Structure formats: C-alpha cells, structure tokens
C-alpha cells in the first residue's frame, strides 16, 4: 500500500490574487518577441538559405569540360540502403572525345520514393559524380514521375568544379605516350 502524503495548500498572496505580475510578465515576453527579427518564411514564395553541406535530392554532375563524371561503377547502387539507385552501365564510343574514360552510364535511375537522403552514394562515389545538393522538395502525380532518370539527374546537378582532373591528366599522359618509343 502506497502511503499518501497530504500536502498543505498555502493561501494565495496579494500579488497572486490580483494576477497583475503574471500579466506584466506575459506582456514582456510578447514585447520582446515583437521586437525580434522575424524568422517565419512565407514558403513557398520565400525559400530558406540551404547550407553548403545540406543533403537534398541526389544529382549527377558534370565536370567543367562538360564531361559526365559518372563512370557507372555501380558502387552507389551497391551501397544504397533502400535500393533506390538503378544503373545500366554502358561503353563510351571509340570515336568520342572521352573515349579514354571507356565507361559511362547508359541509364541511371534514382527512385525518389525510395531515397532516404542518407548521402552514402555521395560518400562512396570514387569519381565525385553524385552529390546531394540543395533541392529538398520533390513532388509528382505518378510513381514514374518520382523516378529521376539520367537526363533529369544531370539537369538537377549541373556543373561543379573538379579539383582532381584525373581523366584530363590521364588523357594528357596518353597523348604524350610512352617515353621509350
């Protein structure tokens, strides 16, 4: 049996009975907030500033030469926890400018109904080709619309600077040729 402890109820003081101090305190809070700068955004007319490392919709990017950076190594497809990514690898034609890269995706689909925005695809990408950028709101009328295909992914991704220029260097070395011949 739990013991019940009867608490003594204290009578209200004069200040409490008039209720005025509470009203003043409340008005003070209201006043302080009135004078603060507004944080409410009139979404969707007004959009928030997206921080640099924000994880929005995954996109594919091109390098400053306009070359698609993805070589369809399928590591993102492998690492993707909800299996949202689906890649069909393809070969770059022998007569193309980027023939030395050999491989590029024929199809690249990201199902945004499955994507959980975890960013593992960006982290795993050895070519720095996939980035979760600033798009955070996706909607569509059908399931098919919610699957971003390769063209859509490049539209969303645009061009990002390339710090390594791995394939440019590779091509330069190839053109220079072997030193002993």
């Amino acid at each position: 049996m739990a013991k019940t402890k009867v608490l003594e109820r204290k009578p209200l003081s004069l200040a409490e009975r008039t209720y005025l101090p509470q009203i003043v305190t409340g008005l003070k809070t209201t006043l302080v907030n009135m004078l603060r700068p507004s944080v409410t955004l009139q979404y969707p007319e007004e959009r928030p500033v997206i921080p640099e490392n924000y994880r929005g919709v995954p996109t594919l990017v091109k390098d400053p030469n306009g070359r698609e950076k993805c070589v369809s190594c399928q590591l993102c497809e492998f690492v993707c926890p909800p299996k949202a990514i689906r890649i069909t690898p393809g070969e770059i034609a022998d007569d193309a400018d980027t023939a030395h890269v050999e491989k590029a995706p024929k199809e690249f689909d990201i199902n945004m109904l499955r994507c959980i925005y975890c960013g593992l695809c960006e982290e795993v990408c050895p070519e720095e080709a996939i980035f979760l950028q600033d798009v955070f709101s996706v909607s569509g009328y059908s399931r098919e619309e919610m699957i971003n295909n390769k063209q859509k992914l490049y539209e969303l991704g645009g061009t990002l600077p390339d710090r390594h220029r791995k394939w440019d260097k590779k091509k330069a070395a190839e053109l220079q040729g072997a030193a002993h011949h």
Partner: protein
Amino acid sequence: MSETKQLETVTVNVDGVEHAFPKGMNLVDAVASIGSEIPHYCYHPKLSVVGNCRMCLIEMGMPMRDRATGEALLDADGKPKIGWMPKPAIGCATTVAPGMHVKTNSPLVRDCRNGVMEFLLINHPLDCPICDQAGECRLQEFATDYGRGYSRYTEAKNVKPKRTRIGPRVMLDDERCILCSRCIRFSKEIANDDVLGFIDRGSYSTLTCFPGKQLENNYSLNTVDICPVGALTSTDFRFKMRVWFLKQVDSICTESSVGANTEVWSREGKIYRVTPRRNDEVNDTWMTDSGRALYQLAEAENRLLRYAVDGQPSSFEAAIAASLDALKGRRLGIVASAHASLEEQFLLKRIVEVTRARVFMAYHQGEGDGILLSEDRSPNLRGALLTGLIDSLPAVDLSALDQALTAGELDSLLVIHEDLSALGVSADNLAKTKVVFAGTHSNATSEAAQVVLPTLTVFERAGSFVNQNFRAQRFKSAVPGPQGIASDLTLLETLAALVVGETPTHPDVNTVWQSLSVANPVFAGLDYNGLGSMGVALEPGPLAELPFVETRNLKYNPR
C-alpha cells in the same frame, strides 16, 4: 583409385604447427589446403611454375644435420635445430619436403609482400571504377590485405596501350597488366596456341600478341579467368554488370559430353556470364568459349514461351489434354534427347513403358578438339543408356524414324528437344503425323507440331548429367524460368501419370532419384544431393565397352 589411399605424406611445419601433406604437393597448394594463404599472382595449380611475381615469398628452413655423421642436430630442449635460409624463398617453386619448416607470416615475409605490392602498384592505373575485374581482383584484395594503404610514388605512371582487342572475345589493357604470364603459359600449355608474349624490358615490358596473330582459339576466355587483374577482360561481359551483384550457381556445360563444371553468374533472373568451376576429374579449371556463350540461349528470340495447341496459345491443362489425345491408344514414337537430364530420361522411360512406344534417338556429333570439346555434342547420352531409355548407341540421324513414318508404322510422335527435320525426317512425314513437341526453342518441328509444350533450359531447371567418363554430375537452377512454364519433370510426370489414369504428383529431383536409385543398381545408394558439387563416378559395367564416338581428350582416354 587404390593408389591415392597409399599416397605417401610428408610432415611440414607451417607457422609452428605440424601438418601432413601428400608427397610432391606444391607449398602454395599445401598451405591453401589447411585454410591458410600464401598470396600469389603468377602461380596457377594447372600451369607451369615461373615464379616471376615474387608475391609468395616465405621463410623456409630444414632440420640441421651434422655434416660428418649425418645425425640431426638438436637444440638445448632436445628438438631438432632448424637451419633457416638466410633469404626468403618463393612458395610456388617449393615442394613440400619431410621436416620442412615454413613461416608464412613472419615480419620478413610481411615486409616482402609489402614491398612487392608497392612495386606492383607503382605503375598500376587507378582504373578500378571502370575496370571489370574490380571485386574479384587479386591486386585489389592483396593491396588491402598486404599493401601499405597509400602511395609514396610521385612520378608519372607508365603509359601503355589500353583498350586493345587482341581477339574476338578478349580485350587487353596493358597498363593494368602485372606481367604474371599466366595467359602466356595457358595459351602455350593448355590451348596449344602460342600467341601471347612479352615485348620490351623492365618497366616497359608489355604483353602483346605475336605479329599477325590473334588470341582467337576456343579457349581464349580462360585467359580472362586466370588473369589476376583486369588486364584481360571479356568483350561479352565488358561493362555489363559488376561482379559483386552476381549470384553464382553450380551448373554443368551442355556443349559436349565432357560436361565441364561451370558457375552461372546471374542477377535478378538474368544471366551475365558462365565461368568454369574447378573439377580435376573433368575440366581442371578450364572450359570452352563456345560453351560459355550458351547462356544466351536462355533469352534467345526463338525461345518457346507458351503452351500451344494447333498453333493457338493454350493453358497447361489444355495442352496436356491435347498431348494425351496424341499419346493414348496410338502407335506412338518417342524421340528422346541426350540433352534431357537423367531424371527426365527416367520419367520418359516410364512413358515409353506405359505407351509401348518405339524410342528413337539421335547421336549429335561434331569435331572434337582433343581438349574439352568432345565429339559427342550432347551432355547426357550415357544417361539415356543408364536409364534404359536406349540399349545401344543411337544412329547419327533419325532416318530410321523417317522410314517408319513413310511406311505408316506410327501415328503420333512425342518429340523431346530435337528438331526432326534437321535430323533427316522429311517435312511430308512430319505433316501427316500428330506431333507433340516438348522443347525450349522453336524450330521446324515445333512449327509443324500440333501440341507445343515449352520446357526449361539447363539454367532454369535442376537435374544431373552423366558425362563421357560415366561421371554423374548435378546442375542447379540458376535463374527462374519464364512465367507459367512447368518444369520438365512436372511435365513428364503429368503425362506419364495421366496416360495410365493416375493422379500426377509434383516430382522434384530428389523424389525422382529415390525411384532411380532403386531402378538401376548403378545408382544404388546415391541421391541428388549425394552427387555433391564434384559429381560421382559411376560403375557402368558393360556399357563402358560400347563404341562411343569420343576420342582422346583432356580427361578421356578410350581403351
């Protein structure tokens, strides 16, 4: 076989633990057999030893002996004193010897591997994202296991030819090559087609084809399998799928009676490639290029995908009913196939017994190459003999059937797999006969047939074949078959049961094997799972004396 039991063993101390190995065993294989590993690139158990990759360096020592008396020297504890060689030795060129002591993981050995890895990686391109070998690359694996983890090399890497087609099925990327020479030795020693070699010296060494030659023999894709890196890749599999997505299932090659053991690599029901599986009794570690290409049959254009009666699509039940109409109470001929599995032939034998049909069979023959392509171009002729479907070797074609049809001796035919018009049965004779065709692909016979019963390919069903050496080998279902197609076993069991008015069961390979092991003493005590991944050599008795068409090849030696 009695020799293997009496094999001499030698005791070798590997990393402080004594192990017994068969005499004459290679040290790399010996260490692998105890679940440990000596990393290696150039060594291959089925090729000659060159020892040029230096990855398998180990420390080796022998018990010391007194030079004068020849007695073993003992240390203070009374144990034999080990004279360690002052420098590391390569494991691949070492044969196990009595009393040998080996260190596979000492600081010196680890240093050696680290150094070898660093040298190999100096000029190796950063192609892993676009390289088909990624995921099954020994260089990748050993770089993570034994490498230093970063590169100290700041100079420019070597430039060598890339994307070179050295044959119709093989691509060469010389920058990735680590000069292990496995492909060169394979071409020379196994394929007997010496077309590959190194040119230039030092770090300029380059693998290339001899001038005016191509790597185009029917075994060229084996060089892709044994290439430890991505230097040689298959043009068929090139950029199709990463290997880590693929599921491997054990299968058997149906190209010829050799019955090469294979692995079928598939993802989500689509087959991407077929590679050989090691079986020293059958195919070592090799298989033909033409056998690998057979996976394309599973998705061929002319695949039969629906049951049909009189050219109209129908249901399984309707097609079975129409077939029974052709089978029951008529003078029936059955064209059996050596492409059918042992289990299917056994069930077909039941149909033959209950319908008292005449059995015809064709002996598919072609030119053999003396290696892994035999003259008998069917995987299971010996199975048909063992199940009693036929009691002697069949004729090369079906002219006997044609004569029987011309003479009006048969009213209807049940054809399994075979294309009759290609085997000498005239179109007129086909047209006037009621034909039930069960097979995987459409052909002239299926066009002429009243009832078409689609069946599954070897990749989609399970069963077993008996190869040229009477070795029963099982294959498993690698991918699901086309929608709505019953397995061959269900189809044959349904026909066999309904012909005599019984209720058909749904058999699988295990239940068929239960009857099979009772029916023929050759299979006594065996079951499907008991065949194991390596197969079981059967004792065929007098059947082995039949004049089979096969001539000598890699593992077949006719008396």
